[in-house]
């Protein structure tokens, strides 16, 4: 756990770099915290479609709460954020039709933070995502 904390601290430089490129309407946190910065990314780029409670929009934008798409394979999840998704998704008997736009303009750190946030909110409990994992998936594109 301690190791995890330190490995995240080391991502600090990336975070401040990304701040320059990222428009933040409410810069609050001064201390590096992946959950806080993940929430900023979520509110800026994800919330409009997936909604404040992560439950999505029936028939259009899939939920992020308690679905294998979020809790399961990290590689698939990172890939969806980076490359988008053009096929309909079926979750719990409901089909979601809106395409997911690619978010490859986010930094590895931002993708890791937002996924760490999503995987630990909306009733989700799954391990964090590290920037190295995002980098690895981005490289395979």
């Amino acid at each position, binding site marked *: 756990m301690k190791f995890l904390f330190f490995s995240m601290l080391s991502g600090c430089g990336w975070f401040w770099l990304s701040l320059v490129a990222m*428009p933040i*309407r409410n810069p609050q946190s001064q201390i590096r915290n992946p959950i806080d910065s993940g929430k900023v990314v979520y*509110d*800026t*780029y994800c*919330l*409009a*479609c997936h*909604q*404040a*409670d992560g*439950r*999505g*929009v*029936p*028939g*259009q*934008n899939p939920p992020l709460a308690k679905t294998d798409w979020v809790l399961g394979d990290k590689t698939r999840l990172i890939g969806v954020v980076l490359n*988008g998704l*053009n096929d*309909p998704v079926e979750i719990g008997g409901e*089909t979601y*039709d*809106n*395409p997911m*736009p*690619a*978010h490859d*303009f986010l930094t590895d750190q931002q993708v890791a933070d937002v996924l760490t946030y999503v995987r630990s909110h909306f009733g989700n409990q799954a391990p964090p995502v590290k920037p190295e994992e995002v980098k690895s998936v981005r490289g395979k594109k």
Partner: protein
Amino acid sequence: MKKVTLLGAVLSLPLLALAGDPPARKPVPPADNAGITLPNGFAATVLSDGVGKARHAVVAPNGDVYVKLNQLADGKGIVRLRDANGDGKADATTAFGTFKGTGLAIANGYLYASSDTSVYRYPLKNGVVDETAQPETIVTGLTFQRAHAAKSIALDDAGKLYVNFGAPSNACQERDRVKGSPAQNPCPLLEDYGGIWQFDANRKNQRQSDGTRYATGIRNAVALEWNPVAKQLYALQHGRDMLATLFPELFNNEQSAELPAEEFLLVKKGADFGWPYCYYDQQRKQKVLAPEYGGDGKKTDRCASKEQPIMAFPGHWAPNDLLFYTGNQFPARYRNGAFICFHGSWNRAPLKQGGYFVAFVPFGKDGKPSGPYEPFAEGFAGGPEIMNPGDAVARPVGLAQGPDGSLYITDSVKGKVWKVRYGK
């Protein structure tokens, strides 16, 4: 006090049930108007509690109500509700048609129904739809598109069929909805989408290329209707999304929730309403340049020459059906006016959502609104504030008028169908 009242209510319930009302022959609206609120003098009954994922509806001359489904139920995509004893509740339900979709209309002796890639029609015999007939294919081979796929339809009185070709895009960026992705200029999607196409209502197996582009620059018009009095085509556009998400330096969440307007359009042949280059700002009362094309929320540029809406509504309310009331049952002021079904927003988040009601717009003899819009039927969502569309108990999606002048409203969540009457 509350406890006593509650106890009384619980105790009296079995007694009421035992009393057993005689079978009603006239529509007797439940005291709560079936979960919705209406202006004084109007009352609603529930024709059906749920037919499935309902979209548009139409009523045949014999009073049968047809509802199009956006998801097949037991393999069928059109539901017929018949209220033989006239108590306001369907007592016979059948289904036919093996395609899902949105559009439904009755004209020149046929029931027209659309999937997202075709338009079909079934013949009427003595005012009754022949559901056993093999449907004729009128328009076919349309490209399957993910976003804004609904092929809503309208028919005029001169044998023409109008079909919505929604743009499979938010604002014609090279990569749809991707922040920083440049706009395509000119927008190539306008060749095949983002407009209303006109077809021969009686010719079989037409491709899109057999039709003509009747009007352009319309992002998506799920609400599309021919006005038989004004003899003009009308539509409502779903305005673009995500101004704040894509351009946080220009728009805050409040502006992004209100803008752009949902536009009520009088669609004349050859009209260009400006999508994706322009959007209507209801506060500035003008079309302004979209930020993807260099706009800053104020610049009008090429948008000054685009066709203006006849009325503007707050952003993202999702107008999904339009009906011009031609009946005699409702008070005279409703005659020839427009009912508009607002399915309800999702793109107003993180602010509370809006829409989820049926509006009425009075019309003058000039075929234009003669006054502001007013709420007609409300309360579908089941709460004063909806934050997530998934919390809405019901979402109004389709409108139809019965031969007796009653108004029918469909819901997309469970497929509930209300029948609204005026007077006793």
